């Protein structure tokens, strides 16, 4: 698994490190910490470098020395990949990389995610005005909407009691199931699997998926419940659920019902109303 963590120097990025380290501990993923600087300089910004190194230290400290799957950097000189793009990388059992790019946070994140083939993007956000990043508009929203992989936006760190996963006709991948597992384990939470049916449409496929998921989680002794809702009810249901726990949306292909239901404004609203986190699964 490859996890791309988007970080800056603000408190909302510091706050997510606890969840990031726990996820890294549980998944033993290849990790990339990405910082994006606004201005094009000849070298990486000092404050961003210091922040990323601090976050690296936090991550490494969460492992005991004998269990640490990542190596320290053999050379602390940042390699220049191209103009405005630098990296520091190490490889042991797993790969760890610090990356600094220049430009728009959302654009560079999406571009890097595609480049490295990441499975999950994680970022925090400020809850002061809904869910925002300092210095650039709509970063979490634009990444959640356009990323080529799953996106976890952590607004507030803390234990949640339930995770509500919203399913539509899309295929559910093993990787996305595992991600939900990880969140359930991280928070020791229960899991609600909510199927969405369109008026007049056959519900065989969605029912089959829901029951298979229920059995999958039940076999893993994870408390899970299924519920089927009409498409007209889903928006209100998801908005209410987002106040009480983490919402995981399975956003599938072009024919995905959720993509039709969850317009830009709806995802924006969810990011604004969620008390904890939003997970967009692809």
């Amino acid at each position, binding site marked *: 698994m490859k996890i791309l963590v988007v970080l800056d120097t603000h408190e909302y990025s510091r706050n997510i490190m606890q969840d990031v380290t726990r996820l890294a501990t549980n998944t033993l993923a290849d990790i990339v910490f990405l910082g994006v600087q606004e201005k094009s300089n000849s070298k990486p910004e000092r404050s961003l470098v210091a922040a990323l190194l601090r976050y690296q230290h936090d991550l490494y400290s969460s492992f005991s020395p004998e269990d640490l799957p990542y190596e320290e950097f053999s050379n602390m000189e940042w390699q220049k990949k191209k103009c405005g793009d630098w990296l520091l990388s190490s490889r042991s059992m797993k790969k760890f990389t610090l990356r600094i790019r220049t430009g728009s946070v959302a654009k560079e994140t999406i571009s890097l995610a595609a480049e490295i083939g990441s499975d999950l993007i994680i970022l925090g956000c400020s809850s002061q005005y809904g869910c925002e990043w300092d210095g650039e508009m709509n970063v979490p929203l634009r990444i959640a909407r356009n990323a080529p992989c799953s996106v976890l936006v952590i607004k507030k760190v803390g234990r949640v009691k339930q995770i509500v996963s919203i399913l539509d006709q899309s295929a559910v991948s093993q990787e996305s199931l595992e991600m939900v597992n990880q969140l359930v384990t991280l928070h020791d939470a*229960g899991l609600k699997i909510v199927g969405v049916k369109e008026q007049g449409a056959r519900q065989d496929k969605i029912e*089959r998926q829901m*029951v298979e998921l*229920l059995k999958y989680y039940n076999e893993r002794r994870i408390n899970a419940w299924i519920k089927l809702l009409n498409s007209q009810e889903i928006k209100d249901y998801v908005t209410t659920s987002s106040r009480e726990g983490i919402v995981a949306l399975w956003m599938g292909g072009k024919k995905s019902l959720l993509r039709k239901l969850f317009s830009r404004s709806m995802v924006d609203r969810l990011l604004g109303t969620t008390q904890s986190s939003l997970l967009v699964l692809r």
Partner: protein
Amino acid sequence: MLKTLLCVDENLASSIALRFTAYLNKFISLSLFVVHVEQPDEKEQVGSGWVQRVWEEGVGANGRRAVARMLRTENIDCPLAGRPKIFVGNRTEEIMYELRSGSYDLYIEGYLNIADSEQFYQVISSPLYAQAPCSVLLVKNLSISKKCALLCADSVDSKILVEKSMEILGDSTFGFDIVYFKFKENEQLEILAAEEGGGNLKQAQALLDGNGKTANNIIVLSGTPEQVGDYLKDYALVASTLPARKSMHMSTLANSLASVLLLR
């Protein structure tokens, strides 16, 4: 042992019901029988006498194969007390006949959890539920909880609730909570003091004590059926009297994420 009839069709609700029944067997000793009814299309019925008998045997064989597939796929850890009973005909009539002639204590079938009170009401007011000679368990989910809720409210007869639930659950190793529901349009579910529960709650508690059981928790909930239904998800099942009409009580059962035991 509780003589139990489980209806199995080749569908997802039955898949959940099979698994939940196996789970239930860890807490209540069940003597489990499985039934399946093949409902042929009227247009397919041809001939009479031996022709019809041969046709029925063919349809029945299809049913046996379907049940065998389900049992093989689910591979539940719960022994059957006898061979699966396969009938051909009207589902309600055949099951009702079997329930009466077999003197069952409990009937179980699966119900995919659709948050539609109207649909739920159609199911529980259908002849099979309204006239069943025993209590009926509607399996909605695969809870791994070890506790049951006795759902009480102003409209609920506490005597029937406790006495009938003890007939099914009295010898089980489940823990019991009494959950008293008071309807109110709240933003969020409120948990009130036990004293807010009123006479019915006290009676339920006394009756439970009289049956040698103690409620682990007495919970008074104030909220909407959706909120209370969601709260009930932490129980393996919710025992309730059968609502006679559309009501908040019925709506709560429709919205319950836990399986519902309708007591008769």
